């Protein structure tokens, strides 16, 4: 009996020691804090895609901290600038993981750059939630470590746009213009999947993101006599295309993807209101930017960054995009319980399925699903008023191992 008691006591002590050792091995976790690494483009020509998105994530973590943190631990964040450049992004990630010893990562607004960190993150088994990069090349084929919580993948952006054009605007032929880069290639693949299902013909033109004159590709598209024009580019080529369409008297619907809407006020200034007579923009949030359903997010921003909020064009259009990934990270940490480990958080992420109240669709991962969001809404925009269109449109694209 005595021997049994001693044996049981030793087992308990050994178990405790083992769990303490396991806990001690988890970087970035203390009794009072959980350290996470945030990164995004905070400088350079692409900062519009990341600056206020990072701000949004930070303010959400601050909110959680004010409410008591996660199981009593406060979130401590370290922010790095990745300049939207692959080498700098890898440097930022390695600094956060090895020097700052963060528990997990939440960052990246640039899809081509985030893929460069994939092998490193997987080898080091660091849980990584992308900020607002679609990063399809990092998300698929799926790994156990990389998740896109905001991420409407580019496959889903393209697919949902075709769904809207076919179902709401009765398009039979779609003029489709994308970038000749990773973004564009992924988007086209998703668009083609939904076009085939809807029996829609795509007339495709691919342009360089740095194109200065869009006359030739636009004329080629118009020659195909499309019912709708889909523009899937970054902001600058998008503005050139919308302006060129107006100049050449094109008056059929134009739908601009979420990637081209960095600053709507800038778009209006660049193209003029008359160019936006029959114009729709895609939005992955539940409402138009600044709309009633997103008001709490905008109010939170005003309270967190009063100086920035007082400036024109702030918050930037993409600001709320930092919220979903921060929500997903917080929820995974909560679900992982009071003694979180990286493995527990990763398990929680794989099972995550919730309505954020911020995104158009549910935030849902799965065994092979790493881009949480596949749904978007569409907004008619005349340069002044935003009118959300009825319905939520969801891409059909799903990952299939090749």
């Amino acid at each position, binding site marked *: 009996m005595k021997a049994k008691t001693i044996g049981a006591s030793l087992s308990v002590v050994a178990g405790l020691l083992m769990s303490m050792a396991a806990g001690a091995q988890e970087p970035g976790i203390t009794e009072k804090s959980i350290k996470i690494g945030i990164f995004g483009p905070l*400088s350079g020509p692409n900062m519009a895609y990341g600056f206020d998105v990072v701000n949004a994530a930070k303010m959400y973590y601050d909110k959680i901290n004010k409410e008591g943190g996660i199981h009593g631990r406060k979130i401590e964040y370290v922010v790095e600038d990745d*300049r939207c450049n*692959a080498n700098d992004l890898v440097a930022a990630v390695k600094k956060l993981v090895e020097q700052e010893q963060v528990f997990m990562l939440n960052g990246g607004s640039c899809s*081509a750059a985030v893929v460069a960190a994939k*092998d490193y993150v997987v080898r080091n088994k660091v849980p990584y939630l992308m900020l607002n990069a679609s990063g399809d090349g990092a998300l698929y084929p799926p790994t156990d470590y990389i998740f896109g919580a905001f991420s409407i993948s580019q496959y889903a952006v393209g697919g949902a746009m075709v769904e809207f054009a076919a179902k709401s605007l009765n398009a039979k032929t779609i003029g489709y213009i994308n970038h000749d880069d*990773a973004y564009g290639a992924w988007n086209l693949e998703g668009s083609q999947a939904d076009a085939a299902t809807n029996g829609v013909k795509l007339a495709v033109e691919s342009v360089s993101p740095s194109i200065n004159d869009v006359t030739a590709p636009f004329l080629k598209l118009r020659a195909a006599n499309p019912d709708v024009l889909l523009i899937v580019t970054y902001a600058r080529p998008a503005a050139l295309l919308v302006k060129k369409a107006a100049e050449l008297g094109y008056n059929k619907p134009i739908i601009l993807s979420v990637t081209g809407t960095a600053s709507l006020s800038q778009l209006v200034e660049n193209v003029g209101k008359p160019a936006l007579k029959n114009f729709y923009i895609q939005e992955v949030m539940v409402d138009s930017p600044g709309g009633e359903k997103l008001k709490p997010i905008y109010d939170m921003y005003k309270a967190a960054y009063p100086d920035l909020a007082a400036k024109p064009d702030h918050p930037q259009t993409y600001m709320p995009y930092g919220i979903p990934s921060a929500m997903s990270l917080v929820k995974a940490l909560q679900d992982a319980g009071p003694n979180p480990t990286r493995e527990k958080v990763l398990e929680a992420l794989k099972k995550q399925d919730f309505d954020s109240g911020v995104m158009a669709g549910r935030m849902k991962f799965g065994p092979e699903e790493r881009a949480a969001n596949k749904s978007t809404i569409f907004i008619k925009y005349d340069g002044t008023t935003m009118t959300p269109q009825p319905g939520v449109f969801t891409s059909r694209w799903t990952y299939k191992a090749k």
Partner: protein
Amino acid sequence: MTTTTATPAAARRAISPQALAALAAAALVLVALPVFTSGYVIYIANLLLVFVVLCLGLHIVIGETGQFSMAHAAFYGIGIYASALANRAVDLPYPVAMLFGALVAGAVGLFIGALALRMRDIYLALATFAFGEAMQWVFANWDSVTNGPNGLRISPARFGPLEILSDKQAYPFVVFFCLLMIGVTIAISRSRLGRSFRAVRESEVAAMAMGIDIKRTRVIAFGLSAAIAGFAGGMFGLFQTFIHPDSLGFQTTILVLTMVVVGGLGSIAGAVGGAIVFGLISEVLRQAPQYQEIIYGGILILFMMYAPRGLFAFIGDRIREARHGRR
């Protein structure tokens, strides 16, 4: 391009005690680095050493031969893709794959050099710039070979049984190859060929009068320069597992050009020092995202105003002034 004062060979070969001390300190830092620092610092060190080799390549064509080239990001990219693909496709041992990358880049460099023979100054700059842009387009669109806009995953390098999976594992190899390329560049610079390069740089007419084949010399300079840039590409694959065409554009060319010019045109130490100093400045400035472009621009303007011959010429001048002052 710039003019330099001829230095007697013996004086050039002599290494001053200060230079020797600096070399010893550099060697100590290189050896001690992996012991005391994290993988992040080693990653930055690896990246800087790759840029050192890339700058050495540009030094051959600009600094030694006085020709203008804005295609180095392209040659670098050719080296990355060629070595990665050779390694992946036929499982070539990585050093052989690196050599293959350098040879492919060198062959393309010879071709471009031959085409650009009749051009000089701004025309040559524009022609090489156009080539660089065309190559970036090829990287982004030749899907079946480069994986196009999705970028190419680079398989981990293998040296016999050792598979390189971390920056620290790659570091000794990167240091070795960097020192090797510094040695090769010094050897080229001190050879008959190097003297021909400088003769062409100083005066083509005088060089021709001495029996130097100007066209041949310029083409060889382009080829060698491209091969060294290609080799730098192979070194990149030692520790980096992914390459995207976006990283091989005009921005990279300008970065390398800035490093060489600000380090000091016509000097190997300038090319090496420029790469390290400006690589480090760039990394340090990431901590000040709101102001980094202003600070970086300000530093460049100050260099152009107060050290137009480059950082190392400036330091040398100050040392000489201090010595004369003491006397």
